[in-house]
């Protein structure tokens, strides 16, 4: 038994030493700086030959970003990177609305690293340090949220009870709806389908591997007619922006010709991430199956309106049976 225990302790010690050394390589300052930079959601354009694009458009997934930074903070304990990771994490929590957590982290940073430049150097307007300025912002934001509390923003969820099937020449495309965040859009779309609005409409503008437009009448090829209930067309819909971002498979309603509302019938299916359209068009759902059909459609030859050179019809549109 004693020999077994000694043997087990030796194995455990070796494993620990091996793991520690492996971790040390993973947690070297050089590696940590690199990982920290990769974990940042936004890149600035700097001098020199590398000019990374600025990702300012669209939304940041703060939850995911916060989680990644939390892991990095754990790894950077006791290294020069730790205070920076704390500061980043606290900021991400602030931007997520977790003011108490952010305040705790900023305060912790001030207490643990009182001589660090983030705490000591008066580099912010008003002769304040970065941490002091952040704590002031936390206080103001906390007071504001007490006056105007916000409910957590709902994540978009597909409503399994309502799907629509578009029959295209090469197959069916099934669309599901985010009825919890865009209920009016979902309602209107399904009504359009039931009223036969989309049957025998043509595919509109196609942008290869980016997006395809649907819902156009053949007689109005090349034009976008505004939604106008007085002319018997479905009415426009007030925007219903949410956390749903434009990505591959997103279905979003086109805008009603420069107005601050969605068109009543015309919609687009996106084939890749396109956050520039977030908060410009309402994402009402996503393609559940058949995205490759839309992708192939986007690669057709185009005429002068950028419509498919061979007119492509939506044969039928129907609400799928549960």
């Amino acid at each position, binding site marked *: 038994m004693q020999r077994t225990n000694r043997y087990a302790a030796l194995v455990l010690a070796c494993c620990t030493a091996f793991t520690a050394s492996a971790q040390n390589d993973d947690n*070297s*300052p*050089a590696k940590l*700086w*690199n990982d920290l*930079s990769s974990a*940042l*959601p*936004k*890149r*600035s*354009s*700097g*001098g*020199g*030959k590398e000019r990374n694009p*600025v990702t*300012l*458009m*669209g*939304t940041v997934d703060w939850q995911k970003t916060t989680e990644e930074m939390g892991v990095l903070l754990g790894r950077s304990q006791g290294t*020069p990177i730790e205070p*920076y990771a704390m500061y*980043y994490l606290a*900021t991400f929590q*602030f*931007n997520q609305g977790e003011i108490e957590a952010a305040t705790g982290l900023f305060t912790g940073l001030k207490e643990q690293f009182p001589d*660090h*430049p*983030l705490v000591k*150097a*008066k*580099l912010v307007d008003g*002769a304040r340090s*970065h941490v002091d300025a*952040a704590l002031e*912002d936390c206080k*103001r*934001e906390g007071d*504001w*949220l007490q006056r*105007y509390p*916000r409910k957590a*923003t*709902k994540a978009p969820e597909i409503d399994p009870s309502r799907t629509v099937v578009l029959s295209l020449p090469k197959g069916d495309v099934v669309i599901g709806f985010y009825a919890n*965040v865009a209920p009016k859009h979902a309602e209107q779309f399904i009504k359009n389908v039931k009223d036969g609005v989309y049957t025998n409409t043509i595919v509109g503008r196609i942008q290869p591997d980016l997006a395809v437009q649907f819902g156009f009448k053949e007689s109005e090829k090349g034009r976008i007619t505004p939604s106008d209930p007085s002319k018997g067309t479905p009415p426009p819909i*007030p*925007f*219903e*922006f*949410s956390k749903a971002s434009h990505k591959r498979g997103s279905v979003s309603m086109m805008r009603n010709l420069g107005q601050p509302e969605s068109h009543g019938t015309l919609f687009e299916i996106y084939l890749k991430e396109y956050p520039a359209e*977030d*908060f410009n068009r*309402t994402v009402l759902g996503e393609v559940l199956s058949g995205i490759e059909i839309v992708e192939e459609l986007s690669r*057709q*030859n185009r*005429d002068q309106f950028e419509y*498919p*050179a*061979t007119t492509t019809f939506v044969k039928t549109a129907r609400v799928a049976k549960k």
Partner: protein
Amino acid sequence: MPSAVRRGRPALWCLAVLLAAAVGRAQDPPKPPALPPNWSQMSPEEQAKWREEMKRRMAGRQDPPAGQSPEDRAKAMRDEKARTREEMEKALKIEAPADRDAVKATYVVGGETKEIKAGEFYDAYLRLSKFEERPGVPVTEDKVFEHLLTLAEARALGFDCTVEEFVAGDPLEKNATLKAETKKLWERQGITEELYRAYEIERRIAQKARDFHLNTARVSSQSVFDAYKGDRFTYRVQYVAFGASEIAEEMQKTPPAEADLLRFWNDDKGVQNQFRTPTTVDAEFVFFDQSSGGDGSADPASAASAVSYEEALSYYRRNKERLDELLTSEQRAKVQPTGKVDPSEIASPFDFLRPQIEKEIRASGRVRVAFNEAKSAPGGDLKALAEKYKLGYASFSKAERQAFVADPRFGLQIFGSLFNAEAGKLSGDLTTERQTQFFWRLNGKAASALPDFSTVKDRLGKAYYETAANGRAADAAKAARAELDAAVDAELKNEIDQRNTAADQNADREIKARNVSDQKQIDEIKARHRQIAQQQLTPVRNIAAGRVFDKIAQSKGWKVEDTGDFELQPARFGQAAPAEQPLAEARLAVVKSQQTLRSMPIGSVSQVVSDGGTKSHYLMKLAERKEPDFSKISESDYLRLRGQAERTVGQQAMSRNMYHELSRRMNLQTR
């Protein structure tokens, strides 16, 4: 005189006039450039320098010396351009300092003043010029300062880059072959490994700072609310409407004199157009519509069945746009190959479309035969001809343009072709519009004409009252505003006098500085400064007008309406109100859509606002503007505005690392 010359005379005259104008323009001296806006603030030395520079530039614009050829002139301009570029590059080039320890500039970071030595500055310039200079984009002093200040701030924040970090992240350190090749390139460019390392380390430090500022920008609810407020303020407005309808009612009690009506008729083109008789045509069409499904072909044995190459090509050219749409994707890929194809596979659209073209021409065979017969018997019965060949027939009598828009079988442009033809003539050839082939005959036309006043004077009353009443309403509104202004002038007399005096003093200073002696220029300068003073006074006057508004409204018996609280509506741009909407409601809608309310100070009165839809002229006093209740913001609006706020703070974070922001924030003082 030969007829060709006679016909060409108007064109020759036009050409002569254009040539004379061009020569005249060439002989005009070049106009002197406008003075820069800050002229009066410039020192005499700066003004002299500016004048010299302008003279030099103007020299390039003067007429070439006599005898200089266009080629020489072009060469002289190119040389001047190259010389200007050389001078600019020379001016921007940074020379090695005589004394490396001399202080080039000072700045403040973290409350401490620091120095940039000339040697340090020059070394940084050398590094940046080796790695960041591009053709036509030299590294300037500003760029070097931007780099050094960014580094200083980054280091003050504790950012650094160790050699280990550099080695771990540098692609050259991981790839010996790449490093060897790069070193050869460096040798030619005068770059050493040490220089590269120093530059890369600095670049990484600066990048860390930039990323830090960009990613630690906090988005506050206050910023979202500030954006929300802009569209959601609640306004309350007191307004007076001077409307045409009230005045028209009064005017109708006294019918207008004939002389007034005649003057109105002669002056108002809009009213004339209401009574103008439209342009009309009388025309007949014989056609075959392919889409009707029938067969329009002629007897196969007839000549109309044979389609020659020339005829097919001519047909294709006339209908190219429509026919090209019929090409399939596969055919289009051969017409416009995207990759390598065998030349034998490349075809023209005409090759693919020829069968369709011949089919269409043959399908219109009967129309062609009928057309030829109509040509051979001018003035014949086209209706009978259409029946004979089992073709469609349409007749239009005194038809306006709109008739052909409502019946677009023959194209929306056919009216123009008809009106430009001679009466009694057939169309020159068959025309194809979509899937209809046709020919036509114009039997008559009548140009638009203005009826005589005597025939319309009895119908002018309504238009007269509307227009005259609207004019009087506008005058009443202007008079009301003038009343307010007069009261304001009295109240603000001292301030107005003070500002006018200051304006005159500024004008005198400018006149003296520029040494102006021409009286006309002196008057212009004085008028300009007075105008600036008036513009600065406008918001002050508008607020003062608000104070006297109630008193004057009461004394004059104006009917002041109150809107109650409302949110601003989209701008209407003079849309006519719906016919069934009561006038009071329509006027309220006009006031509620005035975008100027956003920027008006509370308590101020607007200038006269005229609206064609309600034929009314308004004076509006902004009584209240309240911030919205943020708790009522919808989720959709909140997310949209928050996204916007994120973009704004991101952009602000980026601009904080630019030279102008850095130099301001760090109080850069150059020597």
